[in-house]
């Protein structure tokens, strides 16, 4: 029995979700003490697995009455500690709400429960000529509810937009247990856009229990290219040239040598091991225009010093290329026992600068950094390699991460493009926003979550602090 909870709480939760829907043993809870951000950990006191909206609402009311904090969680693939149970309490895991409730091909929407894994929806749409556009690299595991919480992106968001551009409505449970619907299977509702504000709120306003998502037509054709460069500068200049030329590819990703080597070891795709960087570029749309666009991109890459531009020969090769890209993080295990991924954004024209700075910062802190990122959006993902068993290395990783993100801000960018603030980047909020802006954000949160009982300690800073920090010693960090 958890020590920190009122004695009546767990029996009450058992009544709501049944014995199969509650975990309270210490060993069972360890799985839920962090997400993909492993530097900070804290165990919930109890985990519940509701299977319907009404159960979520009853669990929430139960927590509210007991004065216990509660936090929602999807698959736990987030990378900034967004579902870390700060202060313990009840974790509401939504992975058993995993039904696709409706697919409407005429009106191009689907209704899903929050625990539906991102790729399941696109798989369910096979043969309809439609797909669900947001495609985070973790789409084989992450849930659409989690995508809504963090406003997830992915490689193809360059052309198609991030999660918020594809969410039409949500049903959610407010922190007082009320079930409300915002939006629905329509493009617009009268009044201010609460649906848009709910997306990316990192579970601090309400718990989303049903989602209406927009479906996107499959393009008639694709052209997928691999531009091979002998210098990172040339590759980043090619990105600027393509975008500056008025071409909006469906995806424009960059992989540097470090990651190419790891990917090649893992997948034997035939990546050029001696290249300093490769660009994975895809254009899609009407067949009639694709060859001309491809030719233009090849020409621009060559002008910027590409030594070769390879073309994916067929759908199978395209699929393999994307598999390599999306599983890049998995291949990093070959390079290092631990890694920390950052998520900065810079204006696209600042990419050459920021990549030079990343190399310099890595050298100075003796931390190896490899890069695989959404170059077309200016959304960098430097991956800092280290051994989490060495506390001194952890400190250097944090310091180097701080400096990279500081530099993104100095370029007029952001510290997060798609992973969220979570707990990891709370300290940066004071750098990105004025005290007045943070105050207005806190006021907005209190309109829906007045007691801050839902997801406390997330997104908005409560005390002084700056940058990435290791939290108090009461929590076991990944060292």
């Amino acid at each position, binding site marked *: 029995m958890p020590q920190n909870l009122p004695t009546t709480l767990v029996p009450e939760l058992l009544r709501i979700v049944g014995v199969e829907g509650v975990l309270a043993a210490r060993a069972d809870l360890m799985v839920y003490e962090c997400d993909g951000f492993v530097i900070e950990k804290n165990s919930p006191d109890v985990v519940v697995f509701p299977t319907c909206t009404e159960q979520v609402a009853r669990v929430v009311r139960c927590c509210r009455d007991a004065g216990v904090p509660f936090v929602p969680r999807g698959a736990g693939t987030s990378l900034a500690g967004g579902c870390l149970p700060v202060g313990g309490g009840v974790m509401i895991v939504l992975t058993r709400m995993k039904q696709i409730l409706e697919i409407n091909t005429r009106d191009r929407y689907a209704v899903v429960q929050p625990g539906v894994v991102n790729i399941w929806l696109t798989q369910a749409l096979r043969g309809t000529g439609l797909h669900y556009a947001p495609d985070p690299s973790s789409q084989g595991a992450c849930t659409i509810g989690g995508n809504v919480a963090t406003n997830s992106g992915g490689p193809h968001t360059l052309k198609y937009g991030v999660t918020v551009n594809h969410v039409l409505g949500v049903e959610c449970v407010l922190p007082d247990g009320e079930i409300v619907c915002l939006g629905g299977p329509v493009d617009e509702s009268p*009044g201010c856009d609460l649906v848009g504000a709910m997306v990316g709120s990192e579970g601090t306003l309400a718990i989303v229990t049903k989602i209406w998502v927009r479906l996107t037509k499959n393009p008639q054709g694709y052209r997928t290219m691999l531009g091979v460069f002998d210098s990172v500068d040339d590759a980043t200049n090619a990105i600027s040239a393509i975008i500056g030329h*008025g071409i909006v590819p469906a995806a424009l990703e960059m992989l540097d040598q470090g990651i190419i080597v790891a990917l090649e070891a893992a997948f034997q795709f035939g990546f050029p091991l001696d290249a300093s960087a490769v660009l994975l570029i895809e254009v899609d749309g009407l067949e009639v225009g694709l060859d001309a666009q491809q030719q233009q991109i090849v020409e621009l890459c060559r002008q910027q010093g590409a030594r070769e531009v390879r073309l994916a020969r067929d759908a199978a090769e395209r699929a393999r290329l994307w598999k390599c890209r999306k599983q890049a993080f998995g291949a990093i295990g070959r390079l290092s026992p631990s890694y920390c991924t950052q998520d900065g954004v810079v204006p696209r024209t600042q990419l050459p600068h920021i990549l030079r700075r990343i190399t310099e910062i890595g050298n100075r802190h003796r931390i190896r950094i490899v890069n695989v990122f959404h170059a077309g959006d200016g959304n960098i993902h430097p991956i800092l390699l280290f051994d989490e068993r060495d506390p001194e290395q952890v400190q250097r990783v944090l310091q180097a991460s701080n400096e990279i993100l500081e530099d993104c801000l100095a370029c007029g960018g952001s510290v997060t493009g798609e992973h969220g603030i979570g707990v990891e980047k709370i300290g940066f909020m004071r750098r990105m926003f004025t005290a007045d802006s943070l105050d207005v954000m806190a006021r907005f949160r209190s309109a829906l979550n007045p007691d801050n009982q839902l997801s406390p300690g997330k997104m908005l800073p409560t005390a002084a602090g700056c940058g990435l920090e290791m939290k108090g010693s009461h929590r076991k960090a990944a060292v």
Partner: protein
Amino acid sequence: MGSTRLESSFDQRPISATLRPADARELAGVVAGAFGEATAVYPMGGETSIDFGLPASRPGVGLSTTGLDRVIDYPARDMTITVESGVRLADLNAVLGAERQEVPWDVPAAALATVGGIIATNFNGARRYGCGAIRDHLIGVTAVDGRGVTFHGGGRVVKNVAGYDFCKLLCGSLGTLAIITQVTLKVRPLPEKRGWAAVYPDSLPQAEELLAALEHDPITPTAIELLGGREAMVAPLDPDRPLAILVMFEGMDCEVDWSLGRLREMVGRLRIRQLDAPFTVPHDFHERLVEFPARGGAAIVARGCLPPGQLAGFLPKVWQVDPDCALQAHAGNGLFMLRMARIPSTGLSRSFVAFLQAEARAHHGSLVILSNPAGVEVTRQSTFGGGNAPYHVLESVKRQFDPANILNPGRFLYP
């Protein structure tokens, strides 16, 4: 062409003076002062949609954003632009046009309409279908809340998830939560070519057949418009046809030409009778189409949204209430604008609220009266009653942004 703004009761509003601050700081000072004195403030942009919503509830001052008309930063190669909210849409697109870029917003009276006003009214036009809604182009916002506090959300980069997305929240908020002072927008390259095609279905079921076929074809229009009623048939459309579907393509020359050919085949397959009407339409038609909602003469202008496939089933109800009603629907999105020729003889509450609004809700949609024309008794239900967000949630948000209820009091859903 009619007037450049909707029928307005603005002049009846109790405004003692209209202030025009020269910059955002001065504007924040005015609001802070008004907050201290609990004076009502009525934000104004280009005044093209000034009568949206309910009438004002108490005396106050008008606050014009038109003095905030500077371009702050335009890094064209990053395809973003930061401007003050009082910049007029036509001026914005003139600046962008010099770099062969644009913001694809189809808004009436673009020479007057301000960027801030367009966002506050969430006025989405024809190209929303292929280019996205207002909210999809807005990546950063600075605004002043009802206490005179300046805050911002988002930033200047195209991807950013730090903090709450105030860009979205302020879309459609009608100046009741905050006054927008500056925005950063994603822009897009101008297409090489544009082309419109006009198709004349004989009936709504036949129109729906084509609309559904467009959704299941690889064809990628940027706009799909459904027009109905004689008044909606802007030149050069045939005014004697009951309905018209207008389809717009943008892209490379070869893409537009291929798409027009494909559409022509589709129309033939569906046996839609074109008679001798020309298939392609000159591009200046686009401007006349965009001005449709702002033309004078309508007794009531209403806006609604339905799942697109429900439009054909819903529209006969509209013509049952007013056979002369003119319709412009962004049919690909299910958004529509109705210009009713007369106030229904059975009264608004029976014909509009109890019948049409209820029908729209039954189809998962909404229908609201957009403007408050003189002589029409609009109510909270007829003006905002189509949404599903609970009133107490919206009110709670309003209280946090505007605790003294000085921003546009009475005009929105909140009392």
